[in-house]
């Protein structure tokens, strides 16, 4: 098992190299004038050249790439033209916000989606099932940013129950950073009021993010439950007098969840890359917002950094899922 994890972690190296090459190619081979943009509209030719030299952008692309990769070994992700800060510092500041949002959304999706999928499978072809199938396709079809806007309009602007955006009001001093998750950090610091504030800020964006994975997990869980219920061992369990409730909630559920896990892993990566829109709507200071700002000004180092970090998180999430899968499913051998 440990060996399996180590081997998978080793496989990250070619992934990192591949990702950086692709992102570098996009950043440098496509037209665009990032330095000019960064220097500002009034900059002289000389100033632009100086800026380019300062960031090493006047050098041939393979030299730049070499610098980048060697920098990576020290955890250096380059410097943002826009913020003029090291990309690694920026990412360290923004990543926890995104992770907190994605994990909250995932938690909502899993906690609701899995039981719902199980229940609709049991009620297969009855009207609650049909209804939830339509609702699921509807949920998947709902643009997250439009949903976010509707939630904002409803709960923040009209009802004024929840805040419009951000992670905390600016006047509130954030708790000391431990995990970077404001909810957890405020709990650790014992600041209840900050915790509730953070939670209230988290609620709307997390709901907006969670709807589509919730629906997907529900559908996946439903179909795998239906499949599991047709297995011979379920018939045996029934034939030997186990209560239907026990069969479903204990035996079928575990088998079906393990089939659903893979989807959860895929979705996690997808959500990480998809926070952009929700972060824009809710002004959530995360990686997506950071990347958007960088992209709009063609500031490529942050974009490469963000793509790299999200790509890695995606791979790691899938590794975790694989390990979980092995735990739930003893038959799987790590090889």
């Amino acid at each position: 098992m440990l060996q399996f994890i180590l081997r998978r972690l080793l496989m990250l190296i070619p992934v990192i190299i591949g990702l950086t090459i692709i992102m570098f190619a996009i950043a440098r081979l496509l037209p665009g004038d990032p330095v000019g943009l960064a220097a500002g509209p009034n900059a002289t030719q000389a100033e632009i050249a100086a800026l380019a030299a300062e960031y090493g952008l006047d050098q041939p692309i393979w030299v730049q790439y070499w610098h980048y990769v060697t920098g990576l070994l020290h955890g250096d992700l380059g410097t943002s033209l826009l913020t003029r800060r090291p990309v690694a510092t920026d990412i360290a500041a923004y990543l926890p916000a995104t992770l907190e949002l994605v994990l909250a959304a995932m938690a909502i999706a899993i906690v609701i989606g899995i039981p719902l999928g199980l229940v609709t499978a049991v009620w297969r072809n009855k009207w609650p099932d049909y209804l939830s199938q339509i609702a699921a396709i509807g949920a998947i079809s709902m643009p997250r940013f439009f949903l976010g806007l509707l939630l904002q309009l409803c709960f923040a602007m009209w009802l004024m129950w929840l805040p419009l955006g951000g992670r905390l009001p600016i006047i509130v001093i954030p708790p000391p950073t431990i995990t970077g998750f404001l909810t957890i950090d405020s709990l650790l610091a014992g600041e209840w009021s900050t915790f509730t504030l953070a939670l209230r800020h988290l609620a709307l964006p997390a709901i907006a993010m969670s709807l589509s994975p919730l629906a997907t997990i529900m559908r996946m869980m439903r179909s795998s439950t239906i499949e599991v219920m047709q297995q011979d061992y379920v018939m045996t369990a029934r034939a030997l007098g186990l209560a239907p409730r026990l069969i479903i909630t204990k035996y079928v559920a575990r088998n079906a969840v393990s089939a659903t896990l893979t989807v959860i892993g895929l979705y996690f990566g997808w959500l990480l890359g998809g926070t952009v829109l929700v972060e824009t709507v809710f002004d959530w200071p995360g990686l997506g917002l950071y990347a958007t700002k960088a992209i709009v000004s063609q500031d490529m180092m942050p974009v490469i950094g963000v793509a790299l970090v999200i790509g890695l998180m995606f791979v790691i999430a899938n590794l975790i899922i694989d390990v979980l899968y092995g735990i739930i499913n003893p038959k799987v051998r790590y090889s």
Partner: protein
Amino acid sequence: MTDTLSTDALTPPKYDKLRRAFFRFRQSKLSLLGGVLVALVLFFTAFGTVLAPYPEHIAGGVDTANRFIAPTWAHPFGTNELGQDVLSLVMAGTTVSVLAGFGVVMIGSIIGTIVGAVAGFAGGWVDEVLMRLTDLTLTIPGLILAMAIAAALGPGFGNMVIAISLSWWPGYARLVRGEVLAAREEVYVTAARAIGATPQRILFRHILPNTVSPIIVKMSLDMGFAILTVAGLGFIGIGVRPPTPEWGTLLSISRSYMPDYWWTAMAPGMAMFVAVFGFNLLGDGLRDVLDPKARR
């Protein structure tokens, strides 16, 4: 009873399969609803600009005297900050969204099919390299990749479509490779080999036709998400530029006028939802019909 049995026996199997497929499709009311919604969307794609009540607004005309009119009979979805009729803009926006979505899915599936077919058929190191590339592209968050490419290429409809397509092909590559590998094992391909057909001939005449229906299913399921991605880029401000009406862009502009002029957001948002919902329902139905083994 006897009658149905005897006609069943006389029906050629292929036709029978088709008939049963259609039967299944018609049975599913949801797929029918999807079909109707998609037909509606396609209708507006073709005629939206022509049928719009205020065609002058689509071209960029403004009517500042009538800014922010709440929904009325004359303006069922109200007017925006320039006094333009929101309904007209949204109707015209269908063309951009659907064509862009279609372009993305087409280009994505063509690239993906080529990569997947070559990988699956060539095998060996070609397969290895192509599939590693596919996996890598899958790891990069699609939206960010598309945004980066679109930003680098500059604004414009074509650039946006290309940018999204470049993040869209890996799914097809995997699908086609899997199908090709499976089909390669089939007896008839072995037979074709034995007769001495060239690899190209085997690929085009025997293998690819068999992968068509899963590709079509995936394309119809992807249409909705492609439309969403197009709108997403518009929402962020990358992609087509005003005055070309585009749902995501319209929505992002109306955001600044919330909550007072909330109606400007409703029509573009609902239009996105309906279009995507339609394609998803249809794709779901098509999958059940064309690719029952993938049924979920």
